[in-house]
Every structure is written in structure tokens, then in C-alpha cells.
């Protein structure tokens, strides 16, 4: 269990996020949704230990009750852009987190190699990111995130750069991949459809200063989430987001 308590983020003197608290159990996919500028990305970055200079933060994170310093290998972060390094091959990109965690280049490559086929990237190991399509780049970025031995994954709008069709396909695909090795996921999004399709639970943030205004569990199994079944939840979310 990852617990965030009393998180306040300020830009200068203006509060960006105020008194935010979240419990994130392992194995749960939790979407953080809110209007743009409400500080969603700042929350994720703070958790990842990379809050931009110029922002101040107060708050604490505990994992299973113990205070947690960050960056921490238990948290794998994936930025909004795929951030694949153009000068590294796809395999080197995928193994980057492992290399930084202290493994040799060869060991990192051996660890990522068996994942290329299930990630739909077979044969791309020695290509460069510039040679891949948008969807493949995003899968390579997911591979880089998932292969790190983390217990929690922080995703910042992972599908925002994709076209609508690729996005739908990747959402299902990511849910399937995450189900293979369950871990806690905190995913920032501003897409109602995406959150209701993927999440076990949706946290709604208010406009700036951001705080959690609703915590909505989704109990319907993913396979049974038809448009009709989700209609009510979407209405609720819509009214919450449009409130102010």
C-alpha cells in the first residue's frame, strides 16, 4: 500500500495542489482525472521525485507504513512524451532503467529480450526509435517501464500522443499487460472514456488548487464494461468535472 498524505504543492505563493491524500493498494489501477492545470502531472512528478524547480511541496509518502524517499526503485515513472532516447536502440532504451539500477548492458538486454514478442515489438530490438510508428514507440516506452522491478507504476497521460484508434487498441493492450504482473498503477489522464474503460478506481481532482473531490470505484469487470454499463459513471464524472 502506497499512502500519500497532506500533499500541498505551491508555485510561488499560489497553491497548485492542496491537502491531497490518496491510498494506492498494490494491484489496483487508479486513474487521476481532472481539468487541465489542476496539478495532476505535478502530483505524479512529485511522487517520482522529479518535481520541477520552482515548485514547492509538502506532504509525505509511506509504503506499507514506512516513510519513503524518492526517487525510489519501487516506483517506475513514465513521462507524458515517450522519451525514448533517439541515440539508443529500442533494446537499449527498454533496458535503460535496469542499467541505471546497476545491471550490465548485457544483463539488461537479456532481461528485456523475452518481452519484445508479447509487447508486439519482435524484430525491433536493434532499430532506433525514429524508425518506429507512434504505437510501437509507446509500447517500447511501456516495456521500459514494466521491466523495471517496481511495485508501483506512475503513468502521465500515456496515450496522449496517439491517434484515436491506436489509443483504443493500446488501452486494452496495456490492461492485459498490467494484469500479467499485478502492481499498483497511478495513471494521470483527462480522458473520461479512457479512465472509465481502464480503471479499478477513479480519483477526481478539482480545478486549481487541486484536491480530490470524488473517489469512485468501478466494480464492473473490464470485459463487461459496455457503453451502457458505463453511462452512469460517465455522467457523474462529467458533472464533477464541469462543476466549476
Amino acid at each position, binding site marked *: 500500500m502506497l499512502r500519500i498524505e497532506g500533499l500541498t504543492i505551491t508555485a510561488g505563493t499560489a497553491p497548485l495542489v492542496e491537502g491531497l491524500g490518496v491510498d494506492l493498494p498494490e494491484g489496483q489501477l487508479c486513474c487521476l482525472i481532472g481539468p487541465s492545470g489542476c496539478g495532476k502531472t505535478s502530483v505524479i512528478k512529485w511522487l517520482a521525485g522529479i518535481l520541477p524547480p520552482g515548485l514547492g511541496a509538502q506532504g509525505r509518502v509511506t509504503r506499507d507504513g514506512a516513510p519513503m524517499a524518492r526517487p525510489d526503485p519501487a516506483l517506475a515513472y513514465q513521462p507524458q512524451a515517450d522519451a525514448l532516447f533517439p541515440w539508443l536502440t529500442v533494446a537499449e532504451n527498454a533496458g535503460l532503467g535496469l542499467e541505471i*539500477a546497476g545491471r550490465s548492458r548485457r544483463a539488461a538486454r537479456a532481461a528485456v529480450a523475452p518481452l519484445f514478442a508479447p509487447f508486439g515489438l519482435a524484430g525491433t530490438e536493434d532499430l532506433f526509435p525514429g524508425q518506429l510508428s507512434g504505437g510501437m514507440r509507446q509500447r517500447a516506452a511501456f516495456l521500459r517501464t514494466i521491466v523495471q522491478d517496481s511495485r508501483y507504476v506512475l503513468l502521465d497521460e500515456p496515450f496522449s500522443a496517439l491517434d484515436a484508434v491506436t489509443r483504443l487498441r493500446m488501452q486494452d493492450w496495456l490492461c492485459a499487460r498490467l494484469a500479467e504482473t499485478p502492481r499498483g498503477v497511478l495513471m494521470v489522464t483527462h480522458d473520461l472514456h479512457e479512465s472509465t474503460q481502464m480503471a479499478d478506481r477513479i480519483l477526481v481532482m478539482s480545478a486549481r488548487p487541486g484536491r480530490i473531490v470524488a473517489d469512485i470505484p468501478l466494480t464492473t469487470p473490464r470485459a463487461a464494461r459496455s457503453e451502457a454499463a458505463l453511462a452512469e459513471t460517465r455522467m457523474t464524472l462529467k458533472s464533477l468535472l464541469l462543476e466549476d
Partner: protein
Amino acid sequence: MSLVHRIAPALFCAALLLLGWEVYCTRAGVSPLVLPPPSGVLRALQVERAEILRHAQSTLTVAALGFILSVSFAFLTSVALYFTPLLRRGLMPLLVASQTVPLVALAPLMILWFGFGLLPKVLLVILVTFFPILVSLLSGYRAAPRPFTELLTAMGAGRLSVFRRGILPAARPSFFAGLRISATYAIVATIFAEYAGARSGIGIYILTAKNTFRADLVLAGVVVSACLTLMLLGTLAGIDRLTARRFREAPHAAH
């Protein structure tokens, strides 16, 4: 695009220019003492080739040595300045000011202080080429996409590792741009230093030719200096190609 396709327009323009020059010299009856035609310059090059080659070698040695030292020095300085903002704030104004010192004033002083040997000329080349490389490296470091450095930090990389894995490779295109600018200065700076006093080199060759009113030899020296600069640029382009298949295949874009 093939090499021929790429250089054909440049060759065509150069040929047109030389042709115009040649025709002008013969038709207008200009004295070759004032403006020798290209054919005259070519003849001078041919007749004097042994002598010119000796001077060119000397110039190239100084320029290359100065350039290599300058690149190493600029790289070390850029790393030091990157990691110590205080040093950057302290030194950058001095470095900028150093660029305003006119070469005309400095070259004779260098000769005065360090004699007619290699040292004053190499120092002058370093002084002229150092700054563009340093500035391009520093601006390359700043241009590293933020998501790259953030990702590395979140993965647990330390400052040095972030620099080595993210910032340094991202600075590569701007580093090579700086190298190209500096390479064009390197030969000119060497010739200037030689002009102020030397035993051999294209600079002293041009000076002697000027003093004996041999415009054709002066121009021959100019041609050689241009060739030396092109040679240096060609070497850089070759190094760029050879060292980094990966940097060319992947257009550097911060998506």
C-alpha cells in the same frame, strides 16, 4: 542524394565565377601585377608547389594542434561550468570579454611574449576557436529535452549519470555545429599568427609575396588556405559520420 548531386551546384557556381574572372582579365587588359587571372594563379601554384606545400604543412600542423587542444580544453571547461553554476557566473563574462580582444593587437604580443616557435601560434588558435566550441557545448547541454533528464532522475540516476546518458548525447548536434564554426576560424587564426611573425607557414608566405608585389602568389596562398579549411571541415564531417551511425539514423527530435 548522391555526392555528385550535392556538390554539382557549388562546382557550377565556382566555375562560372572563375570563368567570368578569367574573361574579365583578358578582355579588360588588367595588369597581372594588380589582378592575375585564375590561370595565372594556377600557374603560380604549380611552379611554387614544393615551397607552398612546405608552408601549408607548417600551417596545418599549428592549426590542427591548436584545434585539438582547444576542443579538449573547451570540453573540460564546459563540464566544469555545467556542474558549478557559480563558476559559470564567474567565468562567462571573462570569456565573453576575451572575445572582444582584437587579434591584430594580440598576435604581435603573443610573439613578443612567447617567441617565434609553435607556442604563440597554438595559443592564438586556441584563443580564437575555444569560445565557439564552449558556447555550443553549453547551449547543447541546455537543449537536452527535459523528459529525458527527468526520466533518468526518476530511474535513480545521479547527476553524473544523467549528464553522461542524457545531456551529453543530446548536446552532440550542437557540439558539431560549434566544431564546424571553430574549424573555419582555426586556419585563419593560424595565418594571422604567422603574419605577425613566423619562420614558415602560409601566413609568412603571403606576407613575403605581398612584399615582392606578387599578387599571383598571394592569391595562391589564399587558395591553399581555403583548401586547408575545407580539409579540416571534411575531416570533421568524416568523424561525424564514422562515430555515430545512431545519431544520423535517428533524427534528434524531442517529441
